[in-house]
């Protein structure tokens, strides 16, 4: 069962609370007086007051209460929405709640339509007539029962007071408007494919000491969060100006200051940025330890590459980095080296993990901190760009044309083509389009 029903019913129950609930009054409907009704305005006001929310949110919630059938309108029953005025509404009886009677049965619907048909010939509207005929065909074997039930229910209802009868008819009608919506109206009860749910009742509500680390992370990255602080020169989604993306692309010659600063947050940040990785490689080359980064990268390719190429790649790695006298021999402790060499005899995706980890932490603990203190990094940081802010254009006719950027697929294709000098470059460019 969907749990939103539990929560909605909680709201409904508190609305009907004798002390803190809604003030209800009698409502005149044509010549009859209906008791326990309330106005749309009262509903919205009560929700605002009870949950300390805005009018917009209260109206939104109120609309759901009507759409799911917990409250129904008295005057225009087919118009299932909450109007924030004197329009009268009433609480639906729990008998007809979607949680108690769902899914609605075909038999019940047939009886309902039969009642309508008998009570007043021609009262069924178009789609109801179609449903009625379809049901007549489908459950024809029960039709005597359907008609008999319909007659019995009509007879019983005639013995009620007029006000009660009208109320019951309204309740029943509201129920069916939701469970059998007319064509064109959204089916509010649609849930999507069935899911298997399992209930668990263990409570685990204890907090920890690591929270300070998370708070620090948020603070550190706050300036880098475009949604929080904006971004310079401007957010492309707002101004249609893609300078921000151009200035931060992978192949830029001079990066922005924020980007270079971010490399100092963690070793992972430096490695994840292709430009950062390139800078690190340059630094390591000066220190004659570039093979570490290359080894790490080669291991990544083994781990994330095609299964069929693993053996070949591992062999390459061995020849280049691990074999005695290899051109780019990496310095791993003897125990790890022994284990890795043994493992290479039966290569699999994770065979280089231990060695890779060793080198990773070596770089992290040693090379990385030194890089951050190096002249190379400091110079780059000093020269890095701080973009000027460009404000959003006030005049609509100055709005920029929106262009589609080159597709990543185009980039790789062009790289392949460059080696073959194809004349189809112009055709490839037609794949990108501009849109005003």
């Amino acid at each position: 069962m969907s749990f939103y029903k539990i929560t909605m019913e909680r709201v409904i129950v508190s609305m009907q609370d004798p002390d803190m609930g809604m003030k209800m009054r009698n409502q005149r409907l044509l010549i009859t007086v209906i008791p326990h009704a309330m106005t749309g305005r009262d509903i919205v006001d009560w929700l605002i007051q009870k949950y300390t929310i805005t009018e917009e949110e209260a109206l939104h919630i109120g609309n759901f209460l009507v759409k799911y059938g917990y409250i129904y309108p008295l005057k225009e029953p087919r118009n299932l929405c909450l109007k924030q005025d004197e329009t009268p509404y009433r609480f639906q009886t729990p008998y007809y709640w979607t949680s108690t009677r769902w899914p609605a049965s075909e038999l019940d619907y047939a009886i309902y339509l039969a009642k309508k048909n008998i009570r007043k010939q021609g009262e069924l509207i178009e789609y109801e007539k179609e449903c009625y005929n379809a049901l007549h065909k489908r459950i024809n074997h029960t039709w005597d029962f359907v008609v008999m039930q319909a007659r019995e229910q009509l007879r019983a209802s005639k013995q009620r007071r007029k006000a009660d009868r009208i109320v019951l008819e309204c309740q029943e009608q509201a129920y069916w408007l939701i469970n059998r919506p007319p064509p064109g109206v959204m089916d509010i009860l649609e849930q999507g494919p069935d899911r298997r749910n399992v209930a668990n009742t263990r409570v685990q509500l204890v907090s920890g000491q690591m929270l300070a680390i998370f708070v620090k992370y948020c603070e550190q990255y706050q300036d880098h969060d475009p949604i929080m602080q904006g971004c310079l020169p401007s957010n492309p989604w707002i101004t249609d100006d893609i300078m921000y993306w151009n200035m931060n692309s992978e192949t830029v010659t001079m990066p922005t200051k924020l980007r270079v600063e971010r490399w100092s947050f963690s070793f992972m940040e430096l490695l994840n940025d292709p430009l950062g990785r390139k800078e690190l490689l340059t630094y390591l080359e000066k220190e004659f330890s570039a093979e570490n980064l290359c080894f790490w990268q080669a291991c990544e390719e083994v781990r994330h590459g095609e299964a069929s190429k693993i053996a070949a790649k591992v062999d390459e790695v061995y020849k280049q980095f691990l074999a005695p006298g290899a051109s780019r021999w990496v310095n791993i402790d003897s125990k790890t080296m022994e284990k890795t060499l043994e493992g290479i005899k039966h290569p699999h995706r994770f065979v280089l993990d231990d060695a890779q980890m060793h080198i990773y932490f070596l770089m992290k603990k040693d090379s990385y901190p030194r890089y951050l203190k190096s002249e190379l990094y400091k110079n780059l940081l000093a020269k890095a760009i701080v973009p000027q802010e460009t404000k959003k254009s006030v005049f609509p006719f100055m709005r920029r044309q929106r262009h589609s950027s080159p597709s990543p697929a185009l980039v790789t294709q062009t790289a392949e083509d460059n080696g073959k000098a194809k004349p189809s470059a112009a055709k490839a460019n037609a794949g990108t389009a501009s849109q005003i």
Partner: protein
Amino acid sequence: MCDQTFVAITFGPCDSCSQNKPLMNIYLQNEPVNYCSLCVELMACQGLAKGETVSTLRAESENLKAKLEEERAKLHDVELHQVAEKVETLGQFVIKTRRTLKGHGNKVLCMDWCRDKRRMVSSSQVIMRSAAVCVLQEHAVTMPCTWVMACAYAPSGCVIACGGLDNKCSVYPLSLDKNENLAAKKKSVAMHTNYLSACSFTNSDMQLLTSSGDGTCALWDVESGQLLQSFHGHSADVLSLDLAPSETGNTFVSGGCDKKANVWDMRSGQNIQSFETHESDINSCRLYDLRADREVAIYSKESIIFGASSVDFSLSGRLLFAGYNDYNINVWDVLKGTRVAILFGHENRVSTVRVSPDGTAFCSGSWDNTLDFNPV
């Protein structure tokens, strides 16, 4: 195959009591045997030592649990918002929808950003690749099944993966020619025994992680379609997954209908950690700390009646965007636990919310057939 829902039942003489009954195939000390259910029960109880009964063991287990909670409480715990007291409060945000994609004629079920930060793939019954910035639909592929609940962009930007009620995850290479029939190049990679709920590429185009309504997650080699690892542990449908941005790059988390969020080691297939929530508080978003191994914050409000279908963090982790079944998106201040904005843009439930890779915008897809893009 990722199948844990079949229980092979044969009928015949029980190996223990020799009576003709429905048999369960079990393993005793690595030997397969066929016992009837009564004999299985009796055998399970034989594990009890002298003087023990099921009830005494249960009592001992409860005792140990209580001791564990006691020890945890001794660690002088505080709540997240208390630690975050000194952090500046956020003002109310004004978030506007900047672009709307209306090409889907059906409920939008899922979307994923390309690493180029401006393209995305979205799925309904049709998979659409769009350049979101200029609202340009570039490709559309009609799928044979009506509910395509998962779609993902590969890191290279050259390939997309998707699946749903067809129980499969298929991979499509993207081409530049708009008229080319992408469906012809489709390649089936993953096979589950129930619907596919989520898929994601790992750090490369070559490996695909999937989760399914059959209660399992699986890791596949894209090129060969081979199953590399399967992850069993959920007792109901698994609905979503996300990879961890860790240094060793080996873990991911999955969320299921059994109200558990499980953390897995991709290499061994083991379930490393598990987080459960209480049944009555389903309409809330919760934050769990992996190192502290506990829940640290709840984001909920009495006025929120419906559950959240999809969440994503802003780049700094300070903001949490959550799409709900009441058609709204609520934006939470993760540290303070308060709500900073509501967005009323959709006309049906929000099915997916994702922040762009550089954090400049977030996209929401909805059952009202549209996708909205919102920066501040």
